[in-house]
C-alpha cells in the first residue's frame, strides 16, 4: 500500500492571518498545526466537544471517526472537527476560537 500524499492546507484566522501547513499522510490538521506550533484551540481530541471546529472554504477533508459534536446542519455547512479531520486534497480552512461560536447562537436573543 502506498502512503497517502502530503497536502497543502491553508489556515485562515478571522483577523486575516494565514498559515500554510503541510499535512502529512494520515495526520489530522490539528496534529499538523501543533507540530508547527500554531496553537489552534482543542479540548477532548475525540470528536465530542467541538472546541477544535474549523470550516472548510475549499478542498476536501474527511473525519476519521464519527464527529459527534457536530449536528447534520453543521456538517452541511462544511464545519469540521480538526482533531479528527484528515485532508483528502489541498484545502483552505477557517480556524480559530471564533469558528466554534458559530455553531450555536444564543437561543433567546
Amino acid at each position, binding site marked *: 500500500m502506498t502512503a497517502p500524499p502530503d497536502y497543502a492546507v491553508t489556515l485562515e484566522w478571522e483577523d486575516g492571518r494565514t498559515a500554510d501547513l503541510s499535512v502529512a499522510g494520515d495526520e489530522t490538521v490539528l496534529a499538523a498545526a501543533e507540530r508547527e506550533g500554531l496553537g489552534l*484551540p482543542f479540548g*477532548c481530541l*475525540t470528536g465530542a*466537544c467541538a*472546541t477544535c471546529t474549523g470550516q472548510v472554504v475549499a478542498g476536501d477533508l474527511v473525519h476519521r471517526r464519527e464527529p459527534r*459534536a457536530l449536528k447534520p446542519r453543521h456538517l452541511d455547512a462544511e464545519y469540521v472537527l480538526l482533531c479528527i479531520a484528515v485532508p483528502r486534497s489541498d484545502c483552505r480552512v477557517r480556524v480559530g*476560537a471564533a469558528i466554534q*461560536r458559530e455553531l450555536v447562537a444564543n*437561543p433567546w436573543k
Partner: protein
Amino acid sequence: MSDADAPHDEHDDHAGHDHDHGDHAGPGYSTPQAAIEESEREQLAYVMGLYVGTDVDAPDFLGVVDVDPDSPTYCEIVDRVEMPNRGDELHHFGWNACSSSCHVEGLERQHLVIPGQRSSRIHVVDTKDRRNPEIIEVIEPEEVFEYDLSAPHTVHCIPDGEIMLSMLGDADGELPGGFLLLNDDFEIEGRWDPPGEVEMNYDFWYQPRQNVMISSEWAAPQTYYPGFDLDDVEAGKYGRKLHVWDWEEKEIRQTIDLGEEGMIPLEVRFLHSPVSTHGFVGAALSSNVFHFYEQDGEYHADKVIDVEPREHDDWDMPVPGLVTDLLVSMDDRYLFFSNWLHGDVRMYDVSDPANPRLADRIWAGGNFGPRNPIEGERDVFGGPQMLQLSLDGERLYWTTSLFSTWDEQFYPEEGKQGSVMLKADVNPRKGTMELDQEFMVDFGDLPAGPARAHEIRWPDGDCTSDVWM
C-alpha cells in the same frame, strides 16, 4: 462506641454535637460548628483559570489568589500552576481528604485533584507550600477512557481516604456516565458504581451517616460541550432527575423526576450537619431551587424558590435567571445562589428549609446588573457564577465564568476581557450582604492574556467540599 454507632437523632438541631470525636486525628474539623469556631480567616484562595477554547495559546492553570487584606499582594494572583497540556477546561476540583476522613490518622488535606472537563485528564497538585503548589501526578485521558468514562466533574474525598469523581460520559462522550474512584496514591482504582446504573450525571453529595448520596444530571458531554442548543432540550437530551443512592450498596434506590420546573439540576448540597436529611439543588434552566428531604423512608423534592424570567430590550424572549451554583453556609442557616444570566446573587434564610425566605441580594454584571459595579474598576461581563463562602459565613466570593462554550454564547465579551472575582461582606445576624468595593481580582490582566475564572476553594476546607461522618 464507634462513631457509626452514635445515636442518631433526626431532630438534633445541628452539627452533630452528640457525636463523639475524641479520636479526631485526621484532616478537617470534627463538626461543622468546630469548622466555624476553630478556623482562621481564609488567606489564600485556589481558583481555576482557563484558556481552553480561546486563541490564547496557553494551558489552563490553578490560580493562587491572595485574599488576606493585610497582605501587600491582596487581591492579586500570586502564583499560577500551569497544567502540562492545553485544552483541559479545568472546571471543578476537590481535596484528597476532608472532614469526612477526620478519623483517618496520617491523612492530610494537602492534595488538590483537578480534572479537565474537556480533556478527561486528571491532575494532582500538592499544596504543602500553599503559596507555591506543584503538580505531582497526571492521569492521562487514555487511562480514564479504559473504564469507558470521560468528562470528570465533581471531586469528593470519601471517608476512607479514597477520592470519587462523577464522570459525565462514556469514553466517546456519550451516555452513560458513572463514577471513578482513585485510591490514596492517586491511582485509578476502578469504577465506584456498577456500569449502567446511572445514565446522565453531574454533581453529587453524600451523607455517610444517612447512608445516602444524591446525584444530579446535566447531559451527555457531546450535547453540552459544543454549547447550549434549545433543540437538544426539546429532544430530551438534558436532564431533570435526581438519583438517590444507597451509599454502601452503590446502587440507585430511588429516582426523582423534577419535571418541567426542574430542568438541568446542577449543584447538589446537603446541609452540613451529618444528621440532616435535607438539602437543596438548583435547576439551572428552569431557574428554580428544590428542597429535598427524607420522609417515611423516601426522598422527596419540592420546588421552593422560583426565579421569574425577565424581559430585556435586546432579547426576543424573556431572560431566565439560570441558577448555576448554590451553597449552604456552614451553620446551615443560609442558602446562597447565583442567577448567572440575570446578574444577581441571592441569600435566603433556610432555618426552615421547606420555606426559604429571601434575605438579601446583590447585583453585579450579567444582563441586568451594573456593568461597572465597583467604581474606578473594570467592567464585569458574566453574572455571578461559582460561589464560595468563608467558614464563618461572613464573606461570600464569586467568579463569573460558567463553561467556555456557554460563556461564548451568552457573554462573548467575557472571553475577550477575562473574568473577575468579587466579594460581598455578609452579616449573618442581620441577614444582609454588601458588595465589597475594595475587592476585585482581575483575571483579564494576565501575562498570557485574559482568562476565565471558575471554582474557588480554601486550603482549610470550605462550604462546598466538606462532609462530616
